[in-house]
């Protein structure tokens, strides 16, 4: 960090913001005590996945889009499979539906465990990173590593491998596990559930900055379940739409400072997706164990403090472990791992809940099953404008802090969103300029 200061100009620069996925930069310009400009810059080159998909067969969509991210490939596979299935009128079996839900639980466990224990907790405990934290909070770090490993294992059992799993396909799975394969995961998942509850107690002792915003939370809502693969898209301000209406209500805007498009709600602006949005809109859909744990540690909805997204993420760990155990206990292998899907000229849409928030896919298919056009809107693109708005409101409260602390608090605020810049279009560099 460089800093230079005088009465008129003061510049603070952090050249590398760690503990986020991908490469980007954050620029904050202050004139006196007033924030003049905030830009979350994503300069990773555009990755052109929507263009790669054109001309490819619909069966390839889940595997091609899974390459967008090493952390949430299942989210991409699920949104792609559901969108194509909707286009082609395919109906998956109830057992396959449950297996997909279990698959998603594995991704939530590995992604949330990584972010909570190794990327975000060091901010609240005052460490530079998880390596420094490990020296004095060894048990917490070990717990996080084991949780992530359990999530990885669940993904491997269902997907064939941890990174870029290969088993999910349009119509179901290429291969489904036997009962014994899933039952073997039970003891680890029971431990994971207890570890998540203990992590929630640990997180309730963290000091959360006194900062709230009047967010529009956006998430899926299902009539009975905590949302993963299905539901209507709802908000706390009346949004209630089907996936097919997404582009009528949410528009993507190009801004000069970012290679990722920024999504906004038409005529309303920024909105929040991800764990805190989901919890606020679906608290009543959480299992009793998670609702009781939330009550025991004083977590209440509505919660408008973005720093408490860490607690929301741990509550979702509790949910994901509990849900995985429930599904495994009831599991009966499907008679057929997948249904046959016949191509036709059509359009299909799907929204599923990636660990970081909603992931929208749309595919237009030709008669021969080739993809004519594709549209993908990842969660980090949707939170990008909201991160900028948070910083615009937060920085004036931090004006008295020394430059290093101010920069660190800004970085912590960005990490509230667990941004996956690799998905949005990778390094996040912070430039804070005082004029």
């Amino acid at each position, binding site marked *: 960090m460089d800093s230079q200061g005088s009465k008129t100009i003061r510049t603070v620069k952090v050249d590398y913001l*760690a*503990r*986020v*996925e*991908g*490469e980007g930069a954050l620029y904050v310009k202050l004139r006196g005590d007033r924030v003049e400009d905030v830009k979350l810059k994503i300069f990773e*080159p555009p*990755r*052109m996945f929507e263009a790669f998909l054109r001309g490819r067969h619909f069966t390839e969509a889940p595997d091609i889009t899974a*390459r967008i991210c*090493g*952390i949430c490939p299942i989210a991409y596979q699920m949104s792609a499979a559901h969108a194509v299935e909707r286009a082609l009128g395919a109906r998956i079996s109830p057992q396959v539906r449950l297996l997909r839900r279990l698959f998603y639980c594995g991704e939530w466990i590995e992604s949330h465990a*990584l972010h909570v224990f*190794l*990327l975000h907790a060091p901010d609240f405990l005052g460490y530079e*990173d*998880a*390596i*420094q934290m*490990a*020296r004095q909070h*060894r048990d917490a*770090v*070990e717990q996080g*590593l084991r949780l*992530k*490993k359990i999530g*990885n294992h669940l993904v491997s059992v269902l997907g064939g491998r*941890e*990174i870029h799993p290969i088993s999910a396909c349009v119509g179901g799975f290429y291969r489904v596990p036997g009962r014994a394969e899933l039952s073997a995961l039970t003891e680890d998942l029971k431990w994971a559930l207890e570890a998540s509850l203990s992590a929630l107690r640990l997180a309730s002792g963290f000091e959360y900055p006194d900062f709230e915003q009047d967010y529009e939370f956006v998430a899926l809502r299902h009539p009975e379940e905590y949302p993963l693969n299905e539901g209507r898209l709802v908000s706390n301000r009346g949004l209630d739409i089907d996936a097919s209406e997404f582009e009528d209500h949410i528009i993507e805007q190009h801004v000069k400072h970012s290679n990722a498009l920024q999504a906004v709600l038409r005529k309303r602006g920024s909105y929040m997706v991800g764990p805190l949005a989901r919890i606020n809109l679906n608290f009543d859909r959480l299992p009793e164990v998670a609702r009781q744990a939330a009550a025991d540690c004083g977590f209440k909805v509505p919660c408008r403090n973005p720093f408490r997204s860490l607690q929301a993420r741990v509550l979702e760990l509790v949910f994901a472990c509990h849900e995985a155990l429930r599904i495994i206990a009831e599991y009966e292998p499907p008679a057929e791992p997948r249904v046959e899907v016949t191509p036709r000229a059509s359009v299909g849409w799907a929204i599923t809940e990636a660990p970081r928030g909603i992931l929208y896919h749309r595919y237009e298919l030709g008669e021969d099953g080739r993809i004519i056009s594709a549209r993908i809107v990842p969660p980090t693109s949707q939170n990008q404008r909201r991160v900028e708005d948070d910083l615009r409101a937060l920085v004036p409260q931090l004006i008295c802090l020394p430059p290093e602390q101010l920069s660190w608090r800004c970085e912590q605020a960005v990490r509230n969103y667990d941004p996956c810049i*690799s998905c949005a279009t*990778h390094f996040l560099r912070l430039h804070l300029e005082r004029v």
Partner: protein
Amino acid sequence: MLVVGCGHPDCGDDAAGLLVARRLKQLGVNAVETSGEATSLMACWEAAADVLVVDAMLSGARPGSIQLWDARQVPLMREALRCSTHGLGVAEAVELARALGRLPKRLRICGIEGRRFEPGAAPSPEVLEAVEKASRQIAEEVMCTNQGSSKTC
């Protein structure tokens, strides 16, 4: 000896570690492929006593040059190994394992200097040459170790 190749298959020279692992398999040597994400890497080596991790690096050296570190002795050049797209990569895995007392008895890192890391790029000719050279040296060492040879490999 466990050989672990790390990287991203679709980001140019970032694939160097993976390409070494694949070439070793062709040469009849077992090798594991991973993205290089820290927690997965630590899980890969947890039961092994002798580990060699191969990854791309970006240190400013000549593209295709190969460096070998004894990770138990020397703190790694975190910046050189930060060409991974992940927030926590090979260097963080080594330092986190060191902090937790979970380093293998012998852990070496082989870095292959890359030149281009853009999504969709092919590996550079310099790196492909280095991949072949590193693979043959590693294969020879593994075979010597397996034969229990006392000669220095």
